[in-house]
């Protein structure tokens, strides 16, 4: 039940709802629970609410580590 997926904010309306998108999937979510969301941000969606921002820089850092492991292995 704690399944949550990352999606990108494409539009924010005045009522604190956003249109989010991932590939062909588009859906409306509520942004009440997150601080300072912006169009273009990736958010983690659970039960119709964005529960936090996804940090792509961090994701990139981790992947560099994996890649380095693969190359040295």
């Amino acid at each position, binding site marked *: *039940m*704690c399944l949550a997926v990352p999606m990108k904010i494409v539009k924010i309306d005045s009522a604190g709802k956003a249109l989010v998108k991932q590939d062909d999937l588009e859906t409306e979510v509520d942004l009440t629970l997150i601080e300072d969301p912006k169009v273009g941000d990736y958010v*983690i969606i659970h*039960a*119709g*609410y964005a529960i936090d921002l996804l940090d792509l820089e961090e*994701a*990139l850092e*981790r992947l560099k580590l994996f890649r380095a492991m693969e190359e040295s292995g």
Partner: protein
Amino acid sequence: MSDFGHRLSTSMSLKHILQDRRLAEPLLQEIEKTAAEISRTVRIMEVCGTHTVAIRGSGIHSLLPENVLMISGPGCPVCVTPTSYIDNALQLLETSDTTVASFGDMLKVPGSDGRNLAGYMGGGRVRIVYSPAELLSIAEGTSGSVVFLAIGFETTIPTVAAAFLQARRAGLSNLYLYTAFKTIPPALRALLSSPDRQLDGFLLPGHVSVIIGVQPYRFLEEPGGVPGVIAGFEPLDLLQGILAVLRQTGRGEQRVENTYTRAVRTQGNPKAREIMNQVFEPADALWRGFGEIQASGLVLKGDYREADAALHFSLPPLYNLEPPGCACAQVLQGRLPPTECPLFGSSCTPEAPIGPCMVSSEGTCAASFRYGEAVL
């Protein structure tokens, strides 16, 4: 690196990279090497039901060295909810004209007489919600009262709090919550303090941690604790989390470590917690498999208690009674693999479940049934 930057331009390709078998290989080798240096069995509990499904679904459990055992914990909200909660919800439907709203997972859980909430779907008395945000339109469109079966962990609780506040602001006073929320850290404490525990580390729930951050797990670092590693849900995330537990075990350490840094900040999500704490306060809660755990639940607080369904409808207190022959209570504590329950796969299957561990798609029994032999 620029290649990665490019491929990272959407998080969907991030998902693909995190499922890349070539990148998993060196992690698996590292796991192999680290486990070989520990000359005993290492039992790692994945606390979260979504982890259970991810580990089983990707087949990671079958790729691990022989001395590394993944055991499933209590992290399935439907599974840890006592049968008597279902009985009370059924009673509510029978003795009042209340509409009951619920997450879909709950509907097929048998009450103590074998009946379930799905039986009321036809008449429109039971409504499935995917998001608590839908409660607003349900309450708006209903003349009588609406009771939401409010179960879930810290991932879900803030979403219910937000929806509840939205309903209040909209003047909807016919929405009630029947709270059976649970919080994870007290359950970990209970698992740790069990006298015959066989547990060498925790894979900590990624999306619960998105909300609560790292701090609430710090007690794991005290004497008698075990390594605790916050992990994500893709195959590479899981392998990385397992490796981190093994490395700590090899070095004799017991630290709380966060390997899901793209989603989990050290401080968690303070805004979500603030909204949650505005509406709810800690209370003792009854868990299937564990009994009552101090301050492990959340209930409506202050003036909001008028919307507490248990109080408003004078629902009987909860108690634990397992379906005859069902070993779900032991399964939830990681004491028994589902396949050792005599009913597993014979009289108990996802189509005709006897206990909640077979009902919820995240239940350990259901996951074992579905993904017996899957591979990465």
